[in-house]
């Protein structure tokens, strides 16, 4: 691999990605998805605040802010079990999982109450109270949907240019490894840029609209959340890259990438109706542990980051192997 070529190709790919139709769709999709999530989180607060206070009071800036803060506090309290439900059980619950009677009881409990063990509650409290809660909720939802957005950005990393034989002009001038890593790096640069823009826009939007959290606290949490979004993007990007090197065309690549990313949690959910252990299918991709990237325990967070990086390495290796051995 040639470092100069890799960096040149990365810079060129990042520079020209938005010019191509798919790059532009990815950028718009990312921003639309992020802002839509932020807006959907904000809308009930605004609506309820309007209903709770005297309309005359709501007209003043102070009255509006006060009402929204009260609504936010109430919502935070109510959202705790929902957030706890969204978070996976921690390994500390393994004993309960192994107990057949406890498992039966868990099955019979209402779905929302599942996994509300002490550690998960602590985690939910950390996300909702110790950190800007609305931002935490936004990041959790973004984490759920982001892998599909990544698929839209990465599916055509190689497939389209292999099909149109555009790559052939580069093949005489740079070795395959440099092209493979250069393009991957170029997409990662684009992803970081798009996620930074998204994080900034959502944070500024929340800060201006709500004003419930100090700017410093919000920016710091937004930075951490964005960083974790970048981390979770890596294995999905590498997976899509691998699929893209193997697929015969863009459409096939997009279909396979979407099926792989969506199919894993679907298979896990359907399988767990019969076998509890089927939920571990989620661990084939970061689905099984990605929400731990926002965990209060640094060890859990570190393990989640490690898991993402390990899966990235595996998918990158598979993609590189395919790309350097196939006919182009």
């Amino acid at each position, binding site marked *: 691999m*040639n470092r100069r*070529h890799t960096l*040149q*190709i990365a810079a*060129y790919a990042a520079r*020209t990605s938005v*010019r*191509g*139709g798919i790059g532009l769709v990815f950028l718009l999709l990312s921003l639309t998805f992020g802002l839509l999530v932020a807006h959907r989180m904000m809308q009930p607060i605004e609506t309820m605040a309007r209903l709770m206070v005297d309309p005359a009071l709501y007209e003043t800036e102070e009255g509006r802010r006060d009402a929204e803060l009260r609504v936010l506090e109430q919502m935070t309290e109510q959202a705790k079990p929902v957030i706890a439900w969204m978070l996976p059980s921690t390994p500390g619950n393994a004993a309960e999982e192994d107990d057949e009677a406890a498992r039966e009881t868990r099955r019979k409990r209402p779905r929302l109450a599942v996994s509300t063990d002490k550690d998960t509650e602590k985690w939910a409290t950390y996300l909702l109270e110790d950190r800007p809660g609305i931002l935490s909720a936004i990041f959790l939802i973004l984490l759920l949907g982001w892998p599909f957005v990544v698929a839209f950005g990465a599916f055509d990393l190689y497939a389209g240019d292999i099909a*149109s*034989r*555009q790559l*052939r*002009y*580069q*093949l*005489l*001038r*740079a*070795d*395959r490894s*440099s092209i493979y890593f250069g393009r991957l790096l170029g997409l990662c640069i684009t992803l970081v840029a798009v996620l930074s823009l998204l994080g900034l826009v959502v944070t500024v939007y929340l800060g201006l609209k709500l004003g419930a959290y100090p700017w410093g606290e919000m920016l710091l949490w937004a930075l951490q959340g964005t960083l974790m979004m970048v981390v979770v993007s890596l294995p999905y990007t590498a997976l899509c890259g691998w699929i893209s090197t193997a697929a015969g065309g863009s459409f096939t690549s997009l279909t396979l990438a979407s099926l792989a990313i969506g199919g894993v949690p679907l298979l896990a959910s359907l399988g767990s109706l019969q076998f509890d252990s089927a939920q571990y299918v989620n661990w084939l991709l970061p689905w099984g542990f990605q929400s731990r990237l926002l965990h209060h325990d640094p060890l859990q967070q570190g393990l989640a980051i490690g898991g993402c990086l390990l899966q990235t390495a595996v998918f990158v290796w598979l993609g590189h192997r395919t790309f350097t*051995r196939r*006919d*182009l």
Partner: protein
Amino acid sequence: MNAPSTATLAPALRIANVTKAFGATKALDDVSFEVPSGSIFGLLGPNGAGKTTLFSIAAGFLFADSGSLHVLGTDIAHVSQLQGRLTILPQDASFQRNVPILDQLAFFRQLDGKDKKTAETEVTEALELVGLAEYRKRGIHALSHGMLKRMGIAQAFLGNPEVILLDEPTSGLDPQNARQIRDLVRDLQKRRRVTTLISSHNLAEIQELCDHVAILDKGQMKVSGPVDTILRQARQLEIETSRPLTDDERERLAKLPGVPSITDRGPRRYRLQLELPEGTSADATVAAMLRLLLDAGVTPRALTEGNSLEEFFLSVTGTSHATGH
């Protein structure tokens, strides 16, 4: 007719026992030949003969199932080490749609190690060669099919390549542009001794341009060597006369030593089959024939020894060319 041979013994391309199959179809079957350095080498074959597959292997796009291929002494597995010394016009590769032509081509030169300014200057020069300089800041959507082909050729002529592979460079071009491309290839060979491997369906073009030729058919190498030598393998003379020959004159021609038969090829064109001992020149027969004609008051207008490339090609590939298979 043919450009003077400038070939030396050191081959620019050495292809040895290359085999490539796509599923059950064997695209190349144990193909071996050498392209002499500094030559213009024509690769001929009917559709589906394996020419583009061979070009693709030579450029490192495809991997051969077996055999070896060296370009300028470098194993094609390390093709990127050639760094601009080898360029290609691929047959059906496309360019990026939304990036200006100048940016795309300059990027290729930057990969070759040139700085941005030098790269852009070289690209502009290459585009001027093919008459596309005015389009350099536009995207490929502004170009017609023929212009795209010329852009591909400009890309192949970028920098100082020592070996250029041109896969059907003049197909889809009007006669004027096709002529311009042929002149460019000839000029590059004369000025810089650039080795050019060129495939074409236009046999007259290959005969006019190339000093060496190879014929592929159904993935197998049928013949390879200097054009003159190959064409002279057919022991025959073709002559055009100022007037039709009388029966008596035809009979006297057929009685010349080493001429077993004479056939009509047109109202004033005749072909004499030669039967000469191996290694014997046809010079004596030619001299005797010319003397006989001049004595009879017939002026020879044209004389060709051996086959035309087209006839030779058809004799080697059978009817497959005519049927387009």
